[in-house]
């Protein structure tokens, strides 16, 4: 594990300089969503009582936490990974040292874990200051978010390692990331979706993470241990398969 940590350490040294510019996308923007949707749309929803006694703001906080983690997992595996392959050649430099391909990939993912843990923790703290968190189980939210972020970062890295041009990223964003964040139970229950779309939501890792996060922050949405394990297991499956794919693609690209 030590070699992977040396890769992670390198990213931290660089991040010390660039973290300020990441604050907006990874923290302020989701917070704007909470306030914007929670208060404006929430006004209508709460007036109709569609969610029973649950405030709309409280409903979307766990959803936005998860959706933010997904975006971050995907974003970290898109341009930064392409840059290290093509524009900066950092991976090629690393491959010439005793680091193995698995160390390089693991070092990248450690950085994703770090980013998601820190920004989720801050987001969570602010959300609870706004009165949006109602259970001590919320301390588990960052872990669910990490699992989700890795479920996107690992296949994302495999994808980035397989393409040559960054124009593909816009397509993935438009046809995968945005629809997923709209139809995975972040803003409204998926019961409101037509049946066909509902099955898409079941397949979406985001929906499973939203279920976990919502259970952890809102008592009324609790899960049985078996259901919680099922959601976490599904996310872990994505991480496992994604890691295996990414490793194969990295190896192919760096050792040919």
């Amino acid at each position, binding site marked *: 594990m*030590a*070699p992977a940590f*040396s*890769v992670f*350490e*390198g990213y931290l*040294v*660089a991040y010390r*300089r*660039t973290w300020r510019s990441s604050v907006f996308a990874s923290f302020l923007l989701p917070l704007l969503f909470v306030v914007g949707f929670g208060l404006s749309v929430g006004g209508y929803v709460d007036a109709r009582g569609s969610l029973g006694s649950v405030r709309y703001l409280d409903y979307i906080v766990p959803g936005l936490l998860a959706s933010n983690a997904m975006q971050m997992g995907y974003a970290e595996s898109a341009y930064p990974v392409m840059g290290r392959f093509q524009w*900066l*050649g*950092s991976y*090629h*430099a*690393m*491959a*010439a*040292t*005793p*680091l*193995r391909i698995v160390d390089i990939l693991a070092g990248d993912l450690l950085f994703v874990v770090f980013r998601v843990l820190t920004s989720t923790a801050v987001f969570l703290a602010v959300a609870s200051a706004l009165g949006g968190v109602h259970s001590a189980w919320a301390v588990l939210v960052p872990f669910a978010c990490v699992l989700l972020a890795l479920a996107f970062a690992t296949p994302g890295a495999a994808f980035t390692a397989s393409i040559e041009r960054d124009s593909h990223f816009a397509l993935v964003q438009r046809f995968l990331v945005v629809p997923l964040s709209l139809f995975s139970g972040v803003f409204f229950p998926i019961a409101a979706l037509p049946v066909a779309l509902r099955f898409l939501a079941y397949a979406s890792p985001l929906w499973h993470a939203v279920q976990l996060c919502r259970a952890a922050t809102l008592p009324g949405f609790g899960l049985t241990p078996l259901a919680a394990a099922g959601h976490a297991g599904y996310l872990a499956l994505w991480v496992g398969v994604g890691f295996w794919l990414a490793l194969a693609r990295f190896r192919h690209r*760096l*050792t*040919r």
Partner: protein
Amino acid sequence: MHARGLVKRFGSFTAVAGIDVDVRAGEAFGFLGPNGAGKSSTMRMIGCVSTPTGGTLRVLGMDSRREGVAIRARLGVCPQQDTLDPELTVRENLVTYARYFGISRAVARERAAELLDFVQLTERADSKVEPLSGGMKRRLTIARALVNEPQIVLLDEPTTGLDPQARHLVWERLFRLKMQGVTLVLTTHYMDEAEQLCDRLVVMDGGRIAAEGSPRELIERYSTREVVELRFGTEPLEDRAAKLAPLGERVEVLPDRILVYADDGDATAAAVHRLGVTPASVLVRRSGLEDVFLHLTGRSLVD
């Protein structure tokens, strides 16, 4: 370093077509050849990054396929393209890279300071990488390759793209390394670089080794002592070359000039005039590796 029948194929394309090479400890060894000759593929195999398709390759007594991690720990690699991290300072680039070798932070900082001194970048230690000149970046990349105190340093075209002054500075540092007993393995398509730095070299062409020896041996074996270069402005060269053929051991026609190979250049130049051929300019020079390459492959090295 010991290679026998080393092959690298990418699909149906053969980059390295079975080469035998031995590099002894402490020598400066060069792979000379044009772009696409298979030099970089060979270097990537020696660097235990790319796996050979066929043949055997032992580096520092170890098998390159099975002991890549242990070999890479004792190699320094200076790639053709700079792969420095632009978000880090000059010093941080060295320290971060040293950490990949499992070197402690304290030792890494110490080495970084020594190496910055060695490549004359101490004053820029805390500057970002981006504003550095090409020559400075190249020297930093060389310093980075030395951070693990390697026994072999692999340099892929160490001075390509640098201006003459920057090149000389790099050569001088590499020469110092050689004096310290570090084995240098480099690729180049510059003759002067090979002549300056290499004790021994192989000429590669189309994935094969065309010749092997010291620069001097190669010139003696494959060229004459001197060369007369004749330029004729824009006039066609072919029929003139035919007329000149009897004057030298060999005559080569390049797009812009005719080369006449002879041991006594001045005498040959005089003979050209006696034939009634009047070139726009005449240059008599000693043979170099460029001429060896031209003879071996029928093509010039840098197009």
